[in-house]
């Protein structure tokens, strides 16, 4: 493990993050809001410290990134991005404590969307834009972005890529990792531009359209309004966001192939079919259930609000147009289940991922099958492809760690005096990168009232969830540090 090399790369990543602060700075100048100075200072500090690390350890750059170094770079790089990203909030006095700033910043980067901001509309617009921008950067991944734009990361970039991209087996779309990263960002950019334009057609101004696009495409969930998307009260906007949340919850490799003119690959993809199937089934059940409970006067309304909430929770976005805590218990149960499932592998969504749930179920069926046919030789398959045993083992390990950490974090939150439902919901909503939970962290509430220890552990949960456990947890394993 070459520490200097790790810090060298992290320096480059941080400098990149610092440069992105110039975009909210432009909004600050445009609107003349109090965000100008905080962004100038934050950008200078971030770029300067990044450059210091980068050039200070420039001599260490040789050889390829090893497996361990890759994970250390990604995990610590994200932490650095979270801390630097919290600086504008600190200097603008948005939050009372530094923990809050980092919570908000990492909630952005990890596309969780859990907020400690009590009155969103009172904050400067540049600060709101920064919140949404962190979503967008973190959605496709800051490492993937760096791989696309930093030429020197090409060699050994696969280690970094694997450590950040969600899903059990990352797809390599192009022979070179740099081109793969580039392609993914291009697809991401194309969908973002389309959504922004569609939202502007629905009556949003450019600022709101951009912020909500960032929140949608990254499956983040930060809004510029106190009551989230409900503030616009437009069926058109609801449906546009619903569709784009679903798009963001689908594997971007499939989108790439779709744009390349191979839609059949998507239609035949088993994970995509299950994802869409789950969405449709849940929507139907919720619509019927909500309609029978007389929450909405018309079926159209019931469809509009349930589909939005299901898409929002299933893709782990976290936008809200309705308070699902008022809905029948069955609806809440289903939404809770959606929080566990999450989006598809290779999407910007969080949760455990549809692919993993499918693999776990298939593997469990295999065990039953082998009890009936003791001599059978069988393999777990996704579509026509055989899933190697080590991937299955990885998924089992992931599942156990995910559940274990979720429960552990819930205990820590509960230990600070939060009620048990809210503790579990907050922990789940953070490790699954969803945002709103139930109880005192429901869709109409926020995380501001939680004690500092709870916020700190939830922040860690968000990073664990976004980097899919292994990359982060490995730093806590003593074996990792042995030479």
């Amino acid at each position, binding site marked *: 493990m070459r520490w200097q090399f790790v810090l060298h790369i992290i320096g480059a990543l941080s400098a990149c993050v610092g440069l992105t602060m110039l975009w909210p700075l432009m909004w600050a100048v445009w609107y003349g809001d109090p965000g100008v100075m905080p962004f100038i200072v934050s950008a200078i500090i971030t770029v300067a410290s990044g450059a210091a690390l980068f050039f200070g350890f420039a001599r260490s750059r040789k050889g390829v990134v090893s497996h361990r170094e890759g994970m250390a770079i990604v995990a610590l790089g994200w932490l650095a991005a979270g801390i630097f990203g919290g600086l504008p909030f600190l200097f603008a006095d948005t939050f009372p404590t530094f923990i809050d700033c980092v919570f908000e910043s990492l909630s952005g980067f990890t596309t969780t969307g859990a907020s400690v901001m009590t009155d969103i509309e009172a904050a400067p617009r540049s600060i709101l834009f920064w919140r949404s921008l962190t979503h967008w950067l973190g959605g496709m991944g800051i490492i993937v972005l760096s791989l696309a734009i930093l030429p020197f990361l090409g060699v050994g970039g696969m280690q970094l890529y694997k450590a950040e991209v969600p899903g059990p087996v990352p797809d390599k779309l192009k022979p070179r990792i740099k081109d793969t990263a580039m392609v993914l960002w291009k697809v991401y950019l194309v969908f973002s531009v389309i959504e922004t334009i569609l939202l502007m057609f629905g009556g949003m101004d450019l600022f709101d359209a951009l912020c909500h696009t960032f929140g949608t495409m990254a499956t983040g969930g930060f809004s510029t309004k106190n009551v989230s998307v409900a503030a616009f009260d437009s069926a058109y906007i609801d449906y546009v966001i619903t569709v784009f949340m679903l798009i963001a919850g689908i594997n971007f490799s499939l989108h790439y192939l779709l744009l390349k003119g191979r839609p059949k690959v998507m239609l035949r993809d088993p994970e995509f079919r299950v994802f869409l199937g789950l969405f449709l089934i849940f929507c139907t059940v919720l619509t019927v259930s909500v309609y029978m409970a007389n929450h909405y006067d018309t079926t159209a309304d019931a469809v509009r609000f349930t589909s939005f909430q299901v898409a929002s929770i299933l893709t782990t976005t976290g936008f809200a147009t309705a308070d699902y805590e008022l809905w029948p218990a069955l609806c809440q149960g289903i939404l809770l289940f959606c929080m566990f499932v999450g989006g598809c592998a290779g999407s910007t969504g969080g949760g455990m991922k549809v692919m993993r749930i499918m693999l776990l179920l298939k593997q469990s069926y295999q065990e039953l099958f082998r009890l009936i046919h003791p*001599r059978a030789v069988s393999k777990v398959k996704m579509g026509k492809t055989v899933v190697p045993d080590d991937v299955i083992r990885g998924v089992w390990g992931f599942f156990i760690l995910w559940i274990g950490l979720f429960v552990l974090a819930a205990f820590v939150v509960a230990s600070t005096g939060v009620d048990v439902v809210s503790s579990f919901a907050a922990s789940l909503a953070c490790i699954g990168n969803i945002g709103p939970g139930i109880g005192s962290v429901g869709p109409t509430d926020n995380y501001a009232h939680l004690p500092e220890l709870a916020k700190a552990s939830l922040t860690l949960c968000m990073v664990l969830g976004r980097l899919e456990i292994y990359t982060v947890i490995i730093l806590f394993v003593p074996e990792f540090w042995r030479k």
Partner: protein
Amino acid sequence: MRIIIVGAGEVGFHISRRLAVENKEVIVIDRSADALKRVAEATDVKTIKGSGSSPGVLQEAGVKGADILLAVTDSDEINILSCYFANQLSKDITKLARIRHRDYTDYANLVREGAIGIKKIINPDQEVVDSILRLMSVPGAVEINEFAQGKIRLIGVNLPPDSPVIGTKLLNLRDRIGDVPVVIAAIVRDDELIIPSGVDEIRKGDVVYFACDIRDQDDIIDRLGIKYEPIKKVMIVGGGNIGYQLAKALDNKHFHTRLLDNDPERCQYLSEQLDRPIILQGDGTDQEVLREENIGDMDMVIAVTGDEETNILTCLLAKSLGARSTTTRINNFAYMPLIDPIGIDHLVCPRLSAINSLLHFIRRGQVISTASIKADEAEVLEAIAQEKSDVVGKPIMELDFPRGSLVLCFQRGHDVIIPRGDTVIEPGDRLVILSARNNISKVEKALDAKMEFI
């Protein structure tokens, strides 16, 4: 006429013997001196020791003046290479190769065209798979042969005891089952083949062979009162090339397939390639395994391992445990007559089908294909009626055909015609003729279609 045969294995051996008997100049190439010795002792052929893929050896065999090259070694690659060099050395030679692996058969046009230019690919494994699938498509059938590129079928079936045609004279057949275009070609009764005339009667326990247009097949089977449950549960023993291709063909929701193989690694491969079939690892002759997987409940047990003793034993075990029907693969021709007496329902033999395909192709006179039924007692010929032939222009009942031979049906254009006594054959009709073995030469004479060679 000079024919070069590359590979003196079972296929090479038998085909060289058949060709040498017919007075052809046959040269056999093989790397094994023992194999060559066996050929040389049994037949009047020239043998050359060496690799068939070597241009030098091919030249030594006189590839320049030869008419046909048969590449029939066990290796697809050697066969292809040998055809390639033959093509380079002598452009006009007709090349036939035995190619079994999917890597090549899936891209058949690549080996047919261009620098390799193989005229016909013989894929005996595929033919065996096709014939098993054909058998499965008609439950209760004992034998199915196809003619006129699959348009006409000759099907042998066990008649159930409650069939409406039992006790009917063939003259009155249409009164019993209605006016469907079908002809009863042969009846097997007490292990004896009868080529019937109108006064013969169908009895209980008969195996009836009938010929028909493939499109009428299901209707006729229905009218004959044959109501066997369709085959659903299949156990394949042996996951080699044939077992794999078969399981692949049955890899859909209509079948519950089990595929048993002994080799753990092969099982791994099979389970990766196949979706629905259940892959089992175990020995086909191990009763425990077969019982555990309910072999007695199977509609068909197909034993296609490379070892015929294992195949036969598996089938016998399956039969004794109650399986509905069994099919075994045989390599050694000597075992063939045994299969029926010991109670195995069907046999398939890749080598025999390779030899038949090769011979059919080489004997491209007016006789297009032949197939034997009931262990060679009778043969079915497929031939095109020539303009100058005696059979053309006369009603069928006036033909000078020997007793025990009959025109089953013919294809005219796209139609399949089941002839009556007054039907007149026209030039260009594709005739399907059944004849007892001892009358074949007379039939050929009547057709004026001696087995001419290319």
